[in-house]
């Protein structure tokens, strides 16, 4: 579903991502872990087409993000770490805008918006301007917008930040359901317990380089992910 091959992204002379390769299959929840400034967000932004990159290639369902960006974006969704949304729109106007861009039919969008808004307890607030939303509400709206067109691949940057425990729990359920239906999710997180429990695969990045990746059980073996992460941090220091 997502193939990253030798990705390198430089900011002037500084290599934010250095020769990173990953392969994510359908049905997988793939966790991306690393300390602040390790290159997680840069990688995710390169995948979704926000940042151009210097070397390597990224394929979404076999299509290159550089060669066929529109085709890739049609089957993908992105939830950023900080949900800066159009504050001048109401929640429902924003969701309709996203649905219009993806050309989601009237019936489909009604069903999806109402289902997810009810689930995340945002239904009553959809008529409110986004400027009146809290951080958590904006995050919920970004989640609904990401699921509205049934994407095959969802890229999430710290998706649980700002969500209340119930919404976090529901989002984890939504992620699992999405992958069970053949989709794939690649997301970054600092919450190692969540990554350990939720992810089928895990990749750890440090100073732009992939340190380790594989099935969660294989990466952790009999230790906790926290111990492995700290060990790797110290080993390569």
């Amino acid at each position, binding site marked *: 579903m997502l193939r990253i091959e030798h990705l390198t992204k430089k900011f002037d002379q500084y290599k934010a991502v250095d020769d990173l390769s990953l392969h994510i299959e359908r049905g997988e929840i793939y966790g991306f872990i690393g300390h602040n400034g390790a290159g997680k967000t840069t990688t995710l932004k390169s995948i979704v087409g926000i940042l151009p990159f210097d070397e390597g290639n990224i394929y979404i369902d076999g299509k290159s993000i550089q060669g066929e960006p529109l085709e890739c974006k049609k089957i993908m969704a992105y939830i950023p770490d900080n949900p800066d949304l159009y504050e001048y729109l109401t929640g429902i106007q924003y969701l309709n805008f996203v649905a219009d861009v993806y050309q989601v039919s009237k019936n489909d969008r009604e069903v999806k918006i109402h289902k997810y808004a009810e689930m995340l307890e945002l239904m009553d607030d959809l008529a409110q301007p986004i400027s*009146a939303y809290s951080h958590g509400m904006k995050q919920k709206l970004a989640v609904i917008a990401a699921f509205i067109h049934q994407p095959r691949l969802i890229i999430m940057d710290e998706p649980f930040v700002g969500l209340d425990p119930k919404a976090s729990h529901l989002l984890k359920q939504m992620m699992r359901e999405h992958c069970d239906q053949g989709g794939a999710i690649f997301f970054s997180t600092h919450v190692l317990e969540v990554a350990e429990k939720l992810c089928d695969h895990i990749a750890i990045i440090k100073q732009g380089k992939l340190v380790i990746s594989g099935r969660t059980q294989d990466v952790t073996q009999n230790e906790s992910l926290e111990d492995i992460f700290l060990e790797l941090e110290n080993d390569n220091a």
Partner: protein
Amino acid sequence: MLKTLIKLRIKGIFLRQTRGSKKKKTSIGKIALMAILFGYVAIVFLGMFGMLFFSIVYSLHSMHIDELYFSLMSILIIMFCFIGSVFITHHEIYEAKDNELLLSMPISNKDILLSRIFTILILNYIYELIIAIPALFVYIVSVGMEVMQIILFVGVILTLPLFVLALSCLFGWILAHILVRAKMKNVITIILYVAFMGCYFYVINSIEGYIGWLLQNGETIANAIEKGAFPIYHLSIAISEGNILSFLIYFVCAIVPFIVVIYLLSTNFIKLATTKPKLKKNVYKVKEMKTNSLKKALLIREIKHFTSNAMVMLNGAVGIIFCIIGTIAVFIYGNQIKFVIAMIPELSGMIVPILCLVGIGVNSMNMISASSISLEGNRLWIIKTLPIQAKDILMIKLMLHLLFCIPAGLIFSIATVIVFEVDILNAILVVMAPVLFTTFIDLLGLLLNLWKPKFDWVNETVCVKQSVPSILTMFIAMGLAFVIGICYMLIGNFVTLDIYMYMMFIVFIILDIALYYMLNTWGVRRFEQL
């Protein structure tokens, strides 16, 4: 701590004018550009007020009512500072975004408040000097001043902005209360802004008449000020006669409102800074949803964005307001203008080019597209990650400018065509000239914004008002009108005015096509790199 806060706020004001989009050092070129801009504005205003004071100083002095000269100066200062700072006061004190952050730090409320007040005071002093310097210069050159008079003049200059500040704080407080509860904030802000602007232009246009009236009724007005505007009377007497007692009376009148306002603000600052009004919540009601095409969805998004902020509308499309005012004025004063033109035979053959130029001039004040890329701000990720072609995004931004500006421009042009009874062929020229020019400004602004986008603005008003693309678009638009005039002077002997006008038409059509091509090639690539 107060010193640090003041330093930060002053730095913020200057960086706002010169800083680029990336964390690079401010370039010398940008500083020079801003210096030229501010220098130009300062010279225009200093010259304007200098001429005003020259036109009255001898008459008032010969009538022995010199105090009226200083009364007029102080009234102008109060008006100028008030109009210039009232919206900033509202923003700095009642709507500052960093209030909560600063209140959470170990900084006293008094220091936070004083740092804000000091910033507004600096702006007021700048506004004041634009009037006070020419007033002082003209009086010294024409009449002369003694040392005591100059000392008291300086005393007045130092204290008068304190009174204005009290006034603008009070008005800002009223404004904040109106806007917080108002449903149609944008409409109220636009009405207030247009009313302020209307007053300003009315005063500027009527100033000649007022000076005549002032000189004819000088003594009566002086008496009225003595009775009605007690502090201004004493201020004027203090300077014109070097009267210390009058200065002290004025000083008390100026300083007491300031102290009262500062006391009230400091005791209520936390409440003012942190209270959020209880707004009625709109509960979402399930209803049938509508679907739109991609382009229509993008256009709706652009329209909703543009109309969501009154200051963005006013600063980006002030030409539309002038088109509406112009249309009304043409119908009301049409006969008078025609009469004036009939008196000057040289003008009668130039009606069509003049109407074209007026149309172009009014439409050159619209710069919606020049900030439309920057206004995406930290939400640029949305359109970058959605499956939308860069070309579609740019074309819709282009369309927004045309959609708002062309109808207003057309109404104005058609009004001039009707009132000045222009024949059909020339009518097409009068109507088409602003259309071609609006398209040119639209394309130019968008390309300049693609070249120099700035996504880390403090607020949208600053982005529209003070960004490099907006300023450049404005200067190029103004410069073009000048170039068109100069070119005619140079080749006027070889071509008739009509032929020159047709040539300009062709030049603008070529320019529009060239810029459109550039937008579709370089512009699209540039947007994809952002």
